[in-house]
């Protein structure tokens, strides 16, 4: 168990270093010069050189990377911006705010949208999938299966504005999507995020309905489920205690992948509902050729995904006693 965690954490650290190197290299492959953007419209060469020097951009690439990496652990002193305490991800070229605190400010927005939606869609998906499996071949099954296909073929930027138009503008049922900190007012946090959650759920639930249905049907045909019936367990017990236990493993697997997709998809979600989260930060960092911000956002995303994979592996071991964490 301890060995498992040590190995996985070491692996995760490696992955994050690799991702930061790749981002660094890719950034310099882009034919745009952040120093020029800093310099303004009329830019004498000596100013440009000075800015380059202050940004540390006249050092060789690997030296720049080393400074950046060291800063993450020990902090660094940047001539242009001042002191930057560890974990220092630098200062934004565009807004001059410290990257780390900018990300920290916006993280709750993205996490609220993503995890809230994840809870809603997992609940919906699994419940409808189980109903479909239970009612296999009957009308309820067909309704659930058909509506899941429709849901899966929709897009956030289509359903989102549509739902906002009807639920907010026309009927006035819900407030316009926005982020109210959960620490400030949990009730308002909830109602203001309801539309994004619902929209994401409509689209992603379909997968879970279909998958839950098919894995449940598969599990119900397993020998050990037949044994449970043969020893007098009721249909409901067999369904919930036996078949569902086996069905959880593929669902957890796909859910881990989808959570990562949802995080990545935060860009689209946040653009659609004008929420100020990490996704928006990422888009702006790209537009502004803002290397420190881009690196920061990429790393936070990578960190989340790597953590999720470890979590999924731990969950496997919880669900299935045959899985050993090594």
């Amino acid at each position, binding site marked *: 168990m301890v060995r498992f965690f040590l190995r996985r954490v070491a692996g995760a650290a490696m992955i994050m270093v690799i991702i930061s190197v790749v981002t660094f290299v890719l950034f310099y492959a882009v034919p745009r010069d952040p120093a020029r953007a800093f310099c303004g419209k009329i830019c004498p060469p000596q100013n440009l050189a000075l800015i380059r020097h202050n940004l540390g951009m006249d050092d060789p690439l690997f030296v720049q990377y080393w400074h950046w990496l060291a800063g993450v652990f020990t902090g660094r002193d940047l001539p242009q911006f001042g002191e930057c305490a560890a974990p220092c991800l630098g200062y934004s070229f565009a807004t001059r705010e410290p990257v780390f605190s900018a990300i920290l400010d916006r993280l709750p927005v993205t996490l609220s949208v993503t995890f809230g939606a994840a809870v809603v869609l997992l609940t919906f998906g699994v419940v409808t999938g189980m109903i479909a499996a239970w009612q296999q*071949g009957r009308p309820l099954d067909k309704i659930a299966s058909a509506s899941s296909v429709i849901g899966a073929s929709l897009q956030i930027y289509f359903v989102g504005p549509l739902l906002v138009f009807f639920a907010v503008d026309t009927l006035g049922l819900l407030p316009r999507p926005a982020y109210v900190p959960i620490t400030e007012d949990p009730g308002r946090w909830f109602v203001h995020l309801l539309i994004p959650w619902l929209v994401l759920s409509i689209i992603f639930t379909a997968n879970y309905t279909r998958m839950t249905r098919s894995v449940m049907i598969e599990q119900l045909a*397993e*020998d*050990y489920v*037949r*044994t*449970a*019936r*043969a*020893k*007098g*367990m*009721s*249909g409901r017990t067999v369904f919930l205690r*036996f078949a569902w*236990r*086996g069905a959880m493993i593929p669902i957890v697997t796909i859910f881990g992948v989808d959570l990562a997709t949802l995080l990545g998809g935060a860009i689209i979600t946040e653009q659609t509902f004008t929420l100020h989260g990490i996704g928006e930060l990422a888009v702006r960092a790209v537009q502004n050729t803002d290397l420190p911000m881009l690196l920061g956002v990429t790393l936070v995303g990578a960190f989340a995904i790597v953590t999720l994979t470890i979590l999924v592996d731990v969950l496997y071991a919880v*669900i*299935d*006693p*045959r899985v050993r964490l090594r």
Partner: protein
Amino acid sequence: MTDATREREPAAWSGPGPFLSVRDLSVEFATEDGVVHAVDRLSFELEKGTTLGIVGESGSGKSVSTLAVLGLHDPAHATVTGEIWLEGRQLVGADERVMEGLRGDAVSMIFQDPLSSLSPFHTVGRQIAETYRKHRGGGRREARARAVEMLARVGIPHAAARVDDYPHQFSGGMRQRVMIAMALVCDPGLVIADEPTTALDVTVQAQILDLLTELQRESGTSIILITHDLGVVARSARRVLVMYAGRAVEEGSVREVLREPRHPYTWGLLGSMPRLRSDVDLPLLPVRGTPPSMLAPPPGCPFHPRCDHRRLVPGDACAADRPELSPAEGHRDACHLPLARKREIFDGEIRGRL
């Protein structure tokens, strides 16, 4: 829970008629290709405390007919007709709630592959205890104590420690013992063992069979032993039923059927089995041809396309008329050949090859 207070009839069945009586049982499955006639008017009886071996090749309807005793066929896909009388109760068409109460309590089942048939997600103790609690009620602690007792009874060493282990932590033979402990936890009157030794090591097979026989002696359980291994039948059963294409083709005591088999299919079955004492140069004789499709079983005697002796029956009756089991009692078989003729053929051609 009402189950907790309910006192079940003592295991000894003393009413009129046999303990288990199956009459004209048919099981049909509706599939996309048509109706599969898996079991066709099967009848047999089982006395209290005895073992009936059911033999036949894969697809002969052995398992399907016994699953019908437990009422485990999905009514959406399977049609079960006929009668199954257990201790004077008719089980075909019985209410699902009634069947639920019977399964694991009055009738229980031991399956072929204990690894896939036990839940990998629950400890063996819990799987045994939940059966007990379902039918007998009682607290967790009591059920757990009962599970330990059962594990010890089926010969699992250190039962008190192993009760919290998962099935994958046991060896194949030990797993089958767990399965048997689970099947016997409520002292059922009838145990159906569906190829209980097929998935096991040869050395373990005998141990499991002996265990079943021993437990039967202790508690007077009746056993239906499904197998394709005639050696298993010879070792454990009192009577044997030979099935072919969903029908009973021969029935009698083990001694009768194995020593003086009458049906040509039984001859084929015996001839295809290796024997330790026979001449090593004597080739094994497989039954010619392949088993029939149960979508369209052959008319008349289902074995006639593979039978070497059908020319001896006048008027090709084998392909036209279905032979019934005869005589009514004792050693019976379903074949158009006269009994004297079959004895003649067996003594003249078959016995020497076995």
